[in-house]
């Protein structure tokens, strides 16, 4: 059932009808309302924003300095109400900062996540994967791949890197989920952000009170930035919050969807038999699955023409990387998953100065996890059809709630 769209009405964003196919970025019937040239859409709060979905337009907009990531700016597209100013604590949350303010904090982290440092921790990732696979073997068959493997693995890795005790995972996993759910009531959002900040602040305070020379990210930033006075504790709290949430939610959802996709049509064996192909497979999974499906949000601070459409200062824009990654002008036969495709132009990590800082870590985790899973459980299969699986329709990071598997 679809509701007829009245000619004069703008399409709504997010769409009213969710896609039934977890591999489709949008419901097929509704997709023409959003795909193609820049157009206006209506948001749940009645305001309008420009929707940008073509690969070239997406790249141009996200690279352009006149588009702000600050959600308090006039015209910024909001999918849920902005909490009152006095309840918002966004210190350190550099994904919503612009210019020098943003680069100051981001640059304290770039070396942490650079390729050679991620390569250095690959043995740790491998060990964590092997232990998680032991747990999976002990849990089944059958088992839920999401709760026994896809979620614990990136959560354990980011905890180890940051220096956050994994034993507290129930606490921060539940709250991370709330933060990313656009249906979360404002009061609950405010409360759970505060709880996460309190938790991280207490952890940082303890680390400062008992310096143990720990070789983790929080310990290093305390020694090198907080103690010399370059960084405020509340800023570090916000940075840690961002890394903790982003570090496990995204990779976890990519693993679940990737396994669902690869175990169909025997593609799973490609990873086992041709592990050299794994980096290319991961790139194509990133393109095809594009889990940040509600878009990236910006407000124009100057008049800018994007894809032939003038976007004026003070107007909002929503950038659909999921559709840019299916743009036939860039990817041949874009609706087909092709593990041998050279998908290096995919924009699943975003584009512009806010492009995912953890992308080398995400790529390494996905590659190591999927290859190890295919080697250890070559007979792995999903026991539900893709349409039967419950998905995270209201999360800004799409994924599967559960993935029942056997082997």
């Amino acid at each position: 059932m679809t509701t007829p769209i009245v000619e004069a009405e703008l399409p709504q964003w997010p769409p009213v009808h969710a896609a039934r196919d977890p591999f489709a970025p949008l419901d097929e019937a509704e997709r023409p309302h959003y795909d193609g040239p820049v157009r206006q859409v209506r948001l749940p709060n009645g305001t309008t924003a420009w929707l940008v979905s073509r690969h070239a337009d997406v790249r141009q907009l996200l690279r352009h300095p006149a588009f702000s990531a600050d959600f308090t700016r006039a015209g910024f597209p909001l999918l849920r109400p902005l909490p009152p100013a006095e309840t918002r604590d966004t210190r350190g949350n550099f994904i919503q900062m612009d210019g020098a303010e943003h680069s100051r904090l981001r640059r304290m982290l770039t070396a942490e996540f650079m390729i050679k440092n991620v390569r250095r921790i690959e043995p740790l990732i491998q060990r964590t994967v092997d232990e998680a696979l032991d747990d999976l073997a002990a849990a089944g068959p059958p088992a839920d791949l999401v709760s026994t493997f896809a979620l614990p693995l990136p959560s354990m890795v980011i905890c180890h890197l940051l220096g956050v005790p994994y034993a507290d995972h129930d606490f921060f996993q539940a709250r991370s989920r709330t933060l990313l759910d656009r249906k979360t009531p404002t009061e609950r959002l405010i409360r759970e952000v505060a709880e996460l900040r309190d938790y991280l602040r207490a952890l940082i305070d303890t680390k400062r009170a008992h310096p143990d020379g720990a070789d983790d990210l929080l310990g290093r930033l305390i020694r090198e930035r907080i103690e010399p006075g370059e960084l405020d504790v509340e800023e570090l709290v916000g940075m840690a919050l961002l890394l903790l949430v982003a570090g496990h939610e995204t990779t976890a959802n990519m693993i679940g969807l990737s396994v669902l996709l690869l175990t169909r049509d025997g593609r799973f064996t490609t990873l086992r038999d041709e592990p050299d192909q794994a980096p290319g497979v991961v790139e194509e999974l990133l393109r095809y699955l594009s889990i940040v499906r509600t878009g990236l949000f910006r407000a124009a601070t100057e008049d800018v023409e994007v894809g032939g459409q003038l976007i004026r200062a003070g107007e909002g824009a929503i950038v659909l990387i999921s559709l840019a990654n299916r743009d036939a002008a860039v990817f041949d036969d874009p609706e087909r998953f092709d593990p041998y495709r050279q998908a290096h132009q995919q924009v699943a990590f975003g584009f512009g100065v806010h492009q995912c800082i953890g992308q080398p870590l995400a790529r390494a985790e996905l590659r190591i996890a999927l290859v190890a899973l295919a080697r250890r459980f070559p007979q792995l299969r999903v026991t539900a059809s893709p349409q039967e699986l419950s998905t995270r329709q209201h999360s800004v990071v799409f994924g599967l709630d559960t993935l029942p598997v056997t082997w």
Partner: protein
Amino acid sequence: MTAVDRPGRAETTVQVAVDRDACCGSGNCVRVAPEVFAQDDADGLVLLRATTLAPQSGARARRAADLCPSGAIRVASAEALPR
């Protein structure tokens, strides 16, 4: 296909330059052309291993410039051939 992928470019050498102020440390360039680009141990920002490149590295440097999220890489033909 982008210009970067097109085979048979007639270039011999290319010049590459980077803007560290614009760099956001995403590391795409190091992934695409590790013989041309590196990341600074101190801050993760881009460093150049070479400025004048042979054709094969030049093609990879062009791809890196295309993929650079912040537009911090400039590549120019030494001969400035028409494209």
